[in-house]
């Protein structure tokens, strides 16, 4: 570890900080977090790196990286343009799995069309935070989580179903569900501890298990990776049913091939269909069981309802009365799109046929306004309660 390079790194951070130190955030949590980053930087600038051991220098390097990451997340936050409606829906799902007060959501719109992701700035209980607390007495009680969305799809509620899958990855990584399950199942498979049906299902969804060209290590790596994808698909299906299947199927051209990172699309669709339809499937049983054990009794189960399409057909936003109805709006949109038979035209005495692009716009707008009205009404009601107290 070179002290000069570390000092260069710190100088770069000081320069980056000077551009962001006057940032004002409407969210007080972001403000506090930003303030804490500033405090931490202040302590770093007071240290003499030349007097520190190599290990201590390593810690400082990582601390500087941590501050940079935090600044990057906060500075990129584009809440003014990012649809808060999407954040609200994802927040509801996140709350089912992670304690509400542990995180701050920041958002970013990106140019890349595939940039759907959930990224934490740091893992929830990263040991680096213990170092920071021990050495500088700065305790970061909350974590930044960045939701990334392609700019072109920022108002597209058809494409944004992918974010539920990404949230699934986030939850999976936090709890290490697929990783643990993959190890356990692979071991049991190798040791012939599985039932006949379990073996059949395992070999169906992980077809390379029977391929002698792959070593056990390679197979285990694939299984871990693919279990992550299967978990995320089932996780998403809790909230949006089979919606993500429609999109994945289209984007991958119903791909029947397996890659290093992803199972075949056909297998992914089958797994989601089995989960939603309640079909017998050992892989789903394993996912359910592992999830429940690991997450202290949080369960993978259907968390959506079918909303009557009457409002949408009348070109009206739905009056959402509970947060658990929000993700169901995505389903409503997709089902209307997939089963469209001139319903808008018929229900509204339209003298002409709507173009598909207009229909797309209408459904997206109605979903957005339904969510937006819920947020507004909830805020309004809460504020009245505050006043009366």
């Amino acid at each position, binding site marked *: 570890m070179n002290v000069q390079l570390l000092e260069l790194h710190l100088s770069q951070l000081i320069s980056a900080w000077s551009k962001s130190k006057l940032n004002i955030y409407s969210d007080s949590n972001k403000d506090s977090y930003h303030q804490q980053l500033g405090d931490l930087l202040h302590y770093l600038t007071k240290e003499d790196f030349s007097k520190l051991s190599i290990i201590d220098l390593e810690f400082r390097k990582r601390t500087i990286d941590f501050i940079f990451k935090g600044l990057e997340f906060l500075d990129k936050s584009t809440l003014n343009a990012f649809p808060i409606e999407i954040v609200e829906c994802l927040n509801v799902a996140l709350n089912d799995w992670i304690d509400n007060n542990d995180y701050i959501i920041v958002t970013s719109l990106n140019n890349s069309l595939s940039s759907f992701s959930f990224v934490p700035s740091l*893992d929830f*209980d*990263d*040991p680096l935070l213990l170092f920071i607390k021990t050495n500088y007495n700065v305790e970061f009680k909350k974590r930044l989580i960045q939701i990334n969305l392609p700019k072109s799809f920022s108002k597209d509620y058809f494409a944004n179903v992918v974010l539920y899958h990404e949230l699934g990855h986030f939850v999976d990584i936090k709890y290490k569900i697929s990783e*643990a399950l993959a190890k356990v199942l692979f071991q049991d498979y190798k040791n012939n501890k599985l039932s006949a049906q379990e073996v059949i299902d395992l070999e169906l969804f992980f077809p390379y298990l029977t391929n002698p060209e792959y070593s056990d290590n390679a197979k285990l790596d694939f299984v871990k990776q693919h279990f*992550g994808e299967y978990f995320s698909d089932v996780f998403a299906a809790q909230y949006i049913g089979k919606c993500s299947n429609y999109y994945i199927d289209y984007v991958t051209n119903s791909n029947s091939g397996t890659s290093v*990172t992803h199972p075949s699309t056909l297998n992914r669709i089958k797994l989601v269909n089995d989960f939603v339809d309640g079909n017998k499937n050992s892989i789903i049983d394993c996912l359910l069981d592992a999830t429940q054990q690991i997450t202290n009794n949080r369960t993978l189960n259907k968390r959506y309802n079918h909303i009557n399409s009457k409002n949408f057909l009348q070109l009206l936003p739905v009056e959402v009365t509970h947060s658990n109805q929000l993700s169901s709006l995505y389903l409503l949109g997709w089902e209307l799109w997939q089963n469209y038979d001139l319903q808008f035209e018929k229900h509204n005495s339209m003298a002409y046929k709507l173009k598909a692009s207009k229909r797309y716009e209408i459904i997206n707008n109605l979903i957005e306004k339904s969510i937006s009205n819920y947020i507004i009404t909830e805020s309004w009601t809460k504020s009245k309660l505050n006043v009366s107290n």
Partner: protein
Amino acid sequence: MLYSYSVEDEKVQIFSMFIENIINGDDSYKAEVKRVLNEVKELSLESKTLFSIDRNYFTIIMKLFESNPQFFKEVNLDDLKTAEYQVIEDSLKKNENFIYA
């Protein structure tokens, strides 16, 4: 997943640095290290499973367990010697190239 690899790898590095500090006489992280090693011991003794060990340190626990399960079964965590901390640190450095992605 690139994220998964880099974040987990960093955690292993930092934990390794905690142990290095203990070896050098700094006890600031001893309690935390002991807590993690206890998880490894419980896994070795089968009083915990892969589903019940600490999730945050899962990668580190598995790495240590898989490298030397017998060691962790037998080690007395209340009285760890410097040499034993060295064994633990060496276990963390083993198989540094294993891949999550």
